[in-house]
């Protein structure tokens, strides 16, 4: 009896929080027919938003993979003063509101500041342009790769790398042939979380982008703008598309996991 009660309440919770809203969103997207849905998704503003989100996500993903790996390696392997402080700071983006992050960037790169003047004289536009949007998204997504890799590096230890060195491998070969392959699942999970978060980022990007149509309006900003402009079908359609992309990424992750498990068991 109690078992049923628990199962029932969990199902209800899921329905209320996830399944209900998603179904409603799907229904609302096609409220005016498939043609309207297609028109809204392929309208130039929407397409531009998708492209911009894709570009920012790609840049952020590459930067996180590179710097996340370096950061994790340094935090786990190098013992220096302030390591614990740095390690604690990694989680800061989780606890700071993205709006505050965006606001900090505005203050830092404003036209009166040293940095703002510096980039101004170089002719590089940081605020209300791509650089600030990338920085804001980086701020929000930075912890993911680091947080996936650090526990992995700790459990792996240094034995395997030392074994490779005793077999003649130089530092670069050790990194490419031993360290990176051992971290591959950390990269997969870290990348998945980074992409999902980058696609969905709203607050920080809204503050630093200026939300300029066809210029700095990402997909999420486009949804927000359509909603404010009473274009509900447009907002719903783009939202549903982003949701589909998120689902696809999660499905790919599960597929990769299943495939890895299959190759391991088939070799038995």
């Amino acid at each position, binding site marked *: 009896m109690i078992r049923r009660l628990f199962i029932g309440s969990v199902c209800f919770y899921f329905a209320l929080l996830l399944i209900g809203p998603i179904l409603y969103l799907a229904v609302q997207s096609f409220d005016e027919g498939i043609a309207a849905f297609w028109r809204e998704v392929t309208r130039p503003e929407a397409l531009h938003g998708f492209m911009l989100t894709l570009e920012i996500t790609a840049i952020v993903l590459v930067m996180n993979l590179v710097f996340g790996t370096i950061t994790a390696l340094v935090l786990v392997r190098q013992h220096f003063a302030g390591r614990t402080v740095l390690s604690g700071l990694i989680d800061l983006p989780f606890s700071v509101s993205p709006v505050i992050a965006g606001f900090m960037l505005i203050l830092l790169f404003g036209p009166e500041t040293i940095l703002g003047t510096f980039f101004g004289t170089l002719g590089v536009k940081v605020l209300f342009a791509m650089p600030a949007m990338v920085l804001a998204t980086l701020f929000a997504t930075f912890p993911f790769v680091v947080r996936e890799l650090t526990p992995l590096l700790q459990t792996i230890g240094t034995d395997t790398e*030392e074994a490779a060195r*005793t077999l003649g491998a130089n530092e670069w070969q050790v990194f490419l042939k031993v360290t990176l392959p051992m971290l591959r699942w950390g990269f997969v999970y870290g990348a998945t979380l980074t992409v999902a978060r980058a696609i969905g980022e709203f607050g920080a990007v809204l503050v630093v982008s200026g939300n300029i149509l066809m210029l700095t309006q990402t997909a999420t900003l486009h949804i927000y703008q359509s909603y404010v402009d009473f274009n509900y079908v447009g907002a719903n359609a783009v939202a549903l598309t982003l949701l589909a992309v998120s689902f696809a990424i999660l499905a790919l992750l599960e597929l990769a996991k299943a495939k890895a498990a299959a190759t391991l068991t088939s070799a038995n």
Partner: protein
Amino acid sequence: MKIEVRGLTKQFGSVQAVSDVSFTVKEGELLGLLGPSGSGKTTVLRLIAGLETPSGGDIYIDGKRVNDLSVQDRNIGFVFQHYALFKHLTVFENIAFGLKIKKWKPAEIEPRVAELLSLMSLDALEQRYPHQLSGGQRQRVAIARSLAPRPSVLLLDEPFGAVDAKVRQELREWLIRLHDRLNVTSLFVTHDQEEAMEVSGRIIVFSKGKLEQIGSPAEVYEEPATEFVARFIGAMNILEGQVLNGIVKIGSLKFPAPNISDHVHVKVGFRPYYVKVAEDPHRYRQPATLRHIYFLGVAYRLEIETEEGLILRSRMNKEEFRQYRLEVGQPVSFAVTHFRFLPQEGISFPSSASSQLFDAGPLTP
């Protein structure tokens, strides 16, 4: 000399892990580095491999000083306690790893790996991944991987520490056979004195970063050079006393010490099998009470308490044990038939100090 270590010292911060250690390893030898955990034996092995940099001293391999050679260039094979296999590679790829790094041609790699697979009885497993192997199989893959590039010496760090007792015994016997066959100079680290005695031709005993004794298993067992070795290798009763008129009197036990001057504090040691125990309280001169009986499989260990409260350990074979009807708490008699004075810093003993004890009472009723 295959390996020579001179005045080797290693400091980790304020901790002296290895202090002034010197020894040589002969060509084709299988030598055990024995000591409790934290005694510096693993550090010595890692220093020879080049995985650690010495704070002082010199290391020679094949007569060549290798202090400034990187681990990659020392041509050593290293086997780690927890295998350290490449989990993302198959057994074949693991063994071939060093050969690929050293740019062997594929036509040479294949037969070499096949040779090692058969040598290590791993034939059908070449396409498996490490997690699909048993502990014993993993360690054999690790040994095969280290042997593949034909290293000039093989270094094994607690190679059987991570497998269960039965597999450990198999691996030991298997390592001895492998060594007989390949004759590659091998050093292995262990904290298990039984393992060291069984596997190695010679043993080096370490304690607190210092070398205590080098010798054959029989030498370190029968003639321990220090008190530490006496205590660490096998069971030993150790009593302390003071010499007076050429005799050390400990309770009712008297040990003759004709060549030691008076008032010197000494430690007297004797193995449990030199303590004879009889059910008949009058057979031997010394009375005691039986406190515990331990069954060791091949024999029994008896723990007796003398009237002065000294606890002594005795070893009794099964036949003898069956003749008596020994029960815990009953009175017994005992005699110590052999003993030796343990070496102590600052005191030198004449070699005759180890002798048969005449004052222990009659050995026959």
